[in-house]
């Protein structure tokens, strides 16, 4: 995070010079009211991406600097009330009351609501105002309100709630200067107004209906788009068909469209590596740089375009509102294995990464359902598996027939899904059995995803991916390079097989030999306990050090190390085994102890081993 002024509309606002002491402002609102969009508007690219490894994502922090006034913005999970029932609501509840260790009690609150449904959304205003903190009520989606012919008298509403109100569009940036003025202005507590009985929902709702009346609120006409699109996406025949087609299109694209981009990155890495090789004098340092870092980190970075493509799809599906429909379609299946449809959403986000998925289970009210979802989430094919799958598939599955590779990839995704669902069924019918809690899911309106929001997501992802490449992967690569370079023999680095790393690999060879893996793969399995994609970097380093001439094509090197049955076994092992220490750490934290984290680790790894063994036996 830096302190350069944000490029957003906020900075343009002229306001009295405020003190430079940092102030904390919490962003609160119901789900889908546009909190994240507003947050991104206000903080630009300077938000803290706190997804890795094992750090909190329950609240996003962002800084925005307004004419010397440093503001720490806290984006909280969406809530309908301040009654703490789910973990998510607990976080919001505690933070607003200053009971959070790592964030100071907020100096002010920005309550953001969707103005196209003012009455319902302002139900939250009663509980928020009763906190007695300086508050700004942001009526978001002004563009939508206007387009569909709704109106509201902002001043009259401000009069009624006794605190400033701003009508804005977080999407277009309209009206945001008022938010900036509030954030840097003198914060005054709301003028006392008559509040509803905040623990009583009907009372809150009645109160907000009264507010709407006094503010001469005219609700917009219903959006026909949403109904029409639901007619298609939830159609008994077309719905599931589209669902399947979307999935197929995603896979085909991440496979086909990514190839030229990945080739481009690969060339860049090869060229820069070659250039370094010729520019530097021969030394151990050059060897570390070229064989270790370029070979190791470089072979992972190649997969950046593919991962970003996947995130474009996930972003579009999430932002458009289709994800909630997918959850609806999937609910029947989820019900069969004893989970609620809500579990589907964390499971879908586990396709990106299990860690945010595990954290997002906090919205599940039923603790046993939540636990089951946490335990099965790492089976979903996360993006860190993608480099491993792509590499092995490209090396072993023929390009013809056309769909062979895509089909293998889909098969692996299905494998993870089936393992997750069966595990859930077992858990839910035994140790985690529970009475069913009602499935409630608000269906957001369909909205056109914006380039801005997708772009920000991609940037986030690219940052996370590259940071991982620069830390975890770089570190394991360097350690590996050293272990592979000692002990020196007559002052020269040994053959890798004779090195410490080689010794470790060969020690574990008897264990993995039944799966068709040799000691090099063994080293990869050990290093990739840190993170799955590390195995690609590790093999890149090992082959790079073994090759006489610079870098060797990773794919062809792999072909000499594995047979086809061994390659399939490797894919299956990676589909199931828990090769990710960050996930273990998060599971330990979220389940409140080592017990489930260890059970999960052992279960997944054992399942991976047994299935890989079976596959290797059957195929060879």
């Amino acid at each position, binding site marked *: 995070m830096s302190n350069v002024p944000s490029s957003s509309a906020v900075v343009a606002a002229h306001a009295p010079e405020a003190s430079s002491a940092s102030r904390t402002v919490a962003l609160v609102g119901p789900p889908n009211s546009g909190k994240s969009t507003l947050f991104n508007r206000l903080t630009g690219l300077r938000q803290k991406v706190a997804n890795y490894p094992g750090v909190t994502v329950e609240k996003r922090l962002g800084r925005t600097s307004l004419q010397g006034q440093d503001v720490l913005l806290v984006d909280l999970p969406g809530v309908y009330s301040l009654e703490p029932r789910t973990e998510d609501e607990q976080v919001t509840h505690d933070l607003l009351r200053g009971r959070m260790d790592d964030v100071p009690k907020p100096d002010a609150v920005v309550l953001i609501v969707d103005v196209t449904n003012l009455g319902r959304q302002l139900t939250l205003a009663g509980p928020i105002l009763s906190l007695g903190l300086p508050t700004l009520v942001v009526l978001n989606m002004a563009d939508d309100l206007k387009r569909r012919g709704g109106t509201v008298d902002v001043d009259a509403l401000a009069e009624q709630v006794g605190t400033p109100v701003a009508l804005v569009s977080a999407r277009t940036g309209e009206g945001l200067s008022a938010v900036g003025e509030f954030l840097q202005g003198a914060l005054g507590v709301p003028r006392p107004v008559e509040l509803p009985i905040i623990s009583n929902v009907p009372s809150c709702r009645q109160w907000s209906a009264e507010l709407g009346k006094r503010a001469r609120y005219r609700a917009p006409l219903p959006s026909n788009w949403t109904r029409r699109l639901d007619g298609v996406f939830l159609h008994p025949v077309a719905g599931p068909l589209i669902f399947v087609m979307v999935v197929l299109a995603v896979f085909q694209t991440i496979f086909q469209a990514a190839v030229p981009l990945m080739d481009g990155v690969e060339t860049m890495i090869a060229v820069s590596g070659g250039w370094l090789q010729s520019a530097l004098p021969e030394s151990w340092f050059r060897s570390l740089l070229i064989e270790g870092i370029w070979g190791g980190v470089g072979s992972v970075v190649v997969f950046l375009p593919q991962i970003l493509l996947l995130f474009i799809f996930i972003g579009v599906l999430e932002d458009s509102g289709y994800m909630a429909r997918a959850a*609806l379609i999937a609910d029947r299946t989820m019900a069969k294995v004893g989970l609620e449809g809500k579990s589907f959403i964390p499971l879908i986000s586990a396709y990106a990464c299990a860690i945010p998925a595990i954290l997002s289970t906090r919205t599940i009210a039923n603790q046993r359902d939540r636990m089951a979802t946490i335990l099965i989430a790492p089976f979903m094919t996360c993006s860190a598996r993608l480099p491993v799958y792509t590499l092995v598939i490209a090396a072993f599955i023929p390009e013809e027939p056309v769909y062979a590779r895509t089909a293998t990839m889909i098969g692996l995704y299905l494998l993870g899904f089936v393992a997750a669902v069966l595990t859930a069924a077992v858990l839910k019918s035994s140790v985690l059995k529970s009475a069913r809690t009602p499935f409630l*899911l608000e269906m957001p309106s369909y909205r056109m995803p914006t380039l801005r929001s997708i772009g920000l997501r991609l940037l986030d992802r690219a940052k996370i991916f590259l940071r991982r490449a620069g830390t975890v992967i770089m570190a394991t690569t360097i350690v590996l390079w050293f272990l592979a370079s000692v002990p020196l023999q007559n002052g020269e680095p040994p053959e890798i097989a004779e090195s410490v790393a080689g010794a470790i690999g060969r020690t574990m060879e008897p264990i993995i030999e039944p799966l068709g893996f040799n000691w090099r793969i063994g080293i990869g399995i050990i290093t990739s306990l840190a993170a799955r994609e590390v195995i690609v970097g590790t093999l890149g380093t090992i082959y790079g050090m073994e090759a006489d001439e610079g870098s060797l094509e990773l794919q062809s090197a792999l072909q000499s190390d594995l047979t086809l049955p061994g390659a399939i076994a490797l894919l299956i092992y990676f589909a199931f085994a828990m090769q990710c220490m960050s996930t273990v750490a998060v599971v330990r934290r979220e389940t409140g102890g080592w017990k489930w984290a260890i059970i999960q680790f052992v279960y997944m790894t054992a399942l991976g081993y047994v299935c890989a063994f079976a596959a290797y036996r059957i195929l060879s």
Partner: protein
Amino acid sequence: MTSNSPATLAELREGEEACLDRIDLPEPEARRLMELGFLPGTRIAAARSSPFGDPRVFRVDGSEVALRRETAARLMVRESADIRGG
């Protein structure tokens, strides 16, 4: 069109509307529903269901919320009106 009025939300067919009378669920769950707009006295319309028939989307208080049939069956309704002309 309907001879006997539906007694619960689960009996509403697509396009039908009814007035919520009471929620026959324990407090925390009833409260959750109320926060989403299911307040006694509110008019609720049945909209599309999932392609597999369950859960169904209900239009309530300006938004759309999906409920499983088992939950909808605990929401008691009064008088129904076939506003969409069946």
